[in-house]
């Protein structure tokens, strides 16, 4: 509060010094030229001093300078010299004219100065506003936006506090704010209007309290000091900065809400497809198990031995199917969570052989015919995963395909190829594109149903091995799945001699 009057004081002293110096210079020059010029010219010298003073300094100094100039002129150059007596009315007129000129010039220059100051101020404010707007555009989070707002307000005012209301409606940061200040903040937010000196609301407080945002959307509040009641322009500027900040904050919140909403929607979508898949893939076999088991409990005496066997077979088969779904789900999650570590040399003949051995005993397993080329090159990978891939393909063919299931394994120059063909209805053309998506299981009863995760896992395994898995419709009807695994330089075989 004190440094401004002090600077005003020193400015006044400087003005007085300038005025005195100018009058002194005019006097000196007038005296030096005394023998060559008339007193009219000397008066002109004083006039120059007064005009310069009036232009450069404030009005009071200008008037004092005018009086001093006339007095000095009177004293030094108007006869009788070295007295303040005025002999001639002419000189009175000169004195009056000098005063008039001083007043006029001083008034004019004061107005010019005020106007140019106004222009500078308003340009600075406009700059502050646009700088804040730019910074807010770059701000990616609320803390950064608030910091930018505080910076902008601080460049215009001395003391600034910005407080925002978070998603739960809590104001922060409010630590260390005295209760009356807090009350004023809450009042400004509640009324969504500026309060403080000059606003007609809460004139007793020392600061302006400016809400961020308009009615219903007040995000926070800024407390600004100093707040002279008469500084309407300053108040307007504070309001403008606050509204730019509020817009920035609002934009960030809206974007955040949108992202949240989208993520929620995606999660919901995933959840619902997962639930649909689970409820379908798990409930169908569970229903069959419960039906068969309860039928055996209730009606065993009335069922033939063959019927009882059939039901027991169904229970065992469906339970095995559930177990496979579980295995597929776990494996898919495992594959999705990171690369697998076990990459060893594997024989496709062995993988295929062990899978077929396991599937032979299951319904449809007798239809599998395997043709594996002799001396097939080894591939590098995880045998458990490759076996699961082949199991899923064969299992699908057993369940949904018809006629013989042909498994062939062969090699080309750069790949080992395994294909599984059946004579079932195949995949509907409209379903082909989504066949390998997780949880996609086609229309109920359509081929592929119930294998929801199976094919997705197959493709994931193929890709984890750097290979590919493709589907093709067979010309005469049926499906053909083709797995291609990249061929690598084969390992050295142990020389027989050392054995």
């Amino acid at each position, binding site marked *: 509060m004190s440094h401004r009057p002090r600077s005003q004081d020193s400015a006044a002293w400087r003005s007085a010094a300038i005025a005195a110096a100018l009058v002194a210079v005019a006097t000196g020059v007038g005296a030096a030229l005394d023998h060559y010029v008339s007193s009219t010219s000397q008066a002109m010298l004083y006039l120059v001093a007064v005009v310069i003073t009036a232009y450069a300094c404030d009005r009071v100094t200008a008037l004092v300078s005018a009086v001093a100039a006339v007095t000095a002129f009177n004293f030094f150059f108007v006869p009788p010299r070295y007295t303040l007596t005025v002999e001639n009315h002419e000189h009175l007129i000169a004195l009056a004219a000098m005063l008039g000129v001083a007043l006029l010039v001083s008034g004019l220059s004061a107005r010019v100065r005020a106007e140019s100051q106004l222009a500078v101020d308003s340009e600075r404010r406009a700059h502050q506003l646009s700088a804040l707007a730019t910074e807010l555009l770059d701000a990616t989070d609320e803390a950064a936006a608030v910091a930018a707002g505080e910076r902008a307000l601080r460049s215009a005012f001395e003391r600034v506090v910005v407080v925002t209301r978070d998603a739960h409606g809590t104001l922060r940061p409010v630590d260390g704010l005295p209760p009356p200040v807090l009350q004023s903040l809450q009042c400004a937010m509640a009324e969504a209007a500026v309060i403080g000196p000059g606003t007609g609301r809460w004139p007793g407080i020392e600061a302006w309290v400016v809400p961020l945002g308009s009615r219903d959307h007040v995000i926070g509040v800024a407390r600004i000091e100093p707040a002279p009641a008469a500084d309407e322009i300053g108040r307007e500027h504070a309001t403008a900065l606050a509204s730019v900040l509020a817009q920035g904050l609002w934009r960030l919140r809206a974007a955040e809400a949108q992202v949240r909403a989208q993520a929620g929607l995606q999660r919901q979508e995933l959840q619902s497809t997962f639930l649909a898949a689970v409820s379908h893939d798990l409930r169908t076999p569970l229903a069959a198990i419960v039906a068969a088991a309860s039928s055996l409990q209730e009606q065993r005496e009335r069922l033939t031995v063959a019927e009882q066997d059939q039901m027991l077979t169904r229970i065992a088969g469906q*339970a095995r199917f559930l177990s496979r779904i579980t295995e597929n789900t776990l494996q898919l999650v495992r594959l999705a969570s990171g690369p697998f570590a*076990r990459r060893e040399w594997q*024989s496709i*003949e062995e993988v295929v052989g*062990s899978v077929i051995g396991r599937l032979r005993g299951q319904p449809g397993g007798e239809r599998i015919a395997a043709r594996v080329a002799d001396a097939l090159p080894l591939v590098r990978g995880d045998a458990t995963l490759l076996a699961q891939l082949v199991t899923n393909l064969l299992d699908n063919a057993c369940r949904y395909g018809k006629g013989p299931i042909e498994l062939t394994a062969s090699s080309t120059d750069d790949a080992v190829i395994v294909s599984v063909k059946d004579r079932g209805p195949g995949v509907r053309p409209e379903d082909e594109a989504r066949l390998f998506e997780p949880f996609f299981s086609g229309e109920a009863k359509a081929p592929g149903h119930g294998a929801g995760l199976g094919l997705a896992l197959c493709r994931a395994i193929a890709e984890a091995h750097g290979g590919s898995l493709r589907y093709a419709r067979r010309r005469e009807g049926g499906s053909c799945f083709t797995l291609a695994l990249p061929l690598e330089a084969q390992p050295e075989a142990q020389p*027989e001699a050392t*054995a």
Partner: protein
Amino acid sequence: MTLKVLVVEDDAEMRGLLRASLAAEGFAVTTAVSLSEATAILKHDPPDLVVLDLGLPDGDGAELVSTVRRQSALPIVVASARQDPIGKIALLDAGADDYLIKPFSIAELLARIRVALRHRGSALQPALKHFEGDGLRVDLEARVVERDGDPVHLTPTEFNLLARLLRGAGRIVTHRQLLADVWGTEHVEDTHYLRLYMGQLRAKLERAPSEPRFLRTEIGVGYRFAVE
């Protein structure tokens, strides 16, 4: 004489089911729900075979395998829901006789139990030296292998591999055990030897090498010479 089987399983449903199924096959069944209970039974009333679950309330069943193996050749069949082949291999290498992954069928369990019992004390008894069945005849002492009456020529490595599998007939022999016994301990990581030589052996011995009758693959774990 009735054979005694100890079932170590913490799930009541599973325990009851195994008890009933094994009793129906004529075994005298005792059950334990925890590692400590199993240890106590092993000490005071040693069974002829253990069916062991791995995740037990007071510890891992795997500890029991190594403890038992240090003292006796008691057959242990592990029955667990754990899929991971590495753990499976570790258990087999630690001395478990066989490993079944839940869910398994009772028929499978009974078959594994029969194999494990046949090998009871195999560390002491002479190993299987002859095999004859399904057109294959192997005489390890005479180093004769015949398929459908025709002699089959095997290289020394192929013969050693077959001999090692036949000695543990019916049981899984892990990759590591095979590599160490046939090629030497410095080759335990060279699983591709096995892939190559097993391929050659199958080509010579099996009617359909891609669907082997004898030389079965235990995916990710090892091989088994199937006798049944």
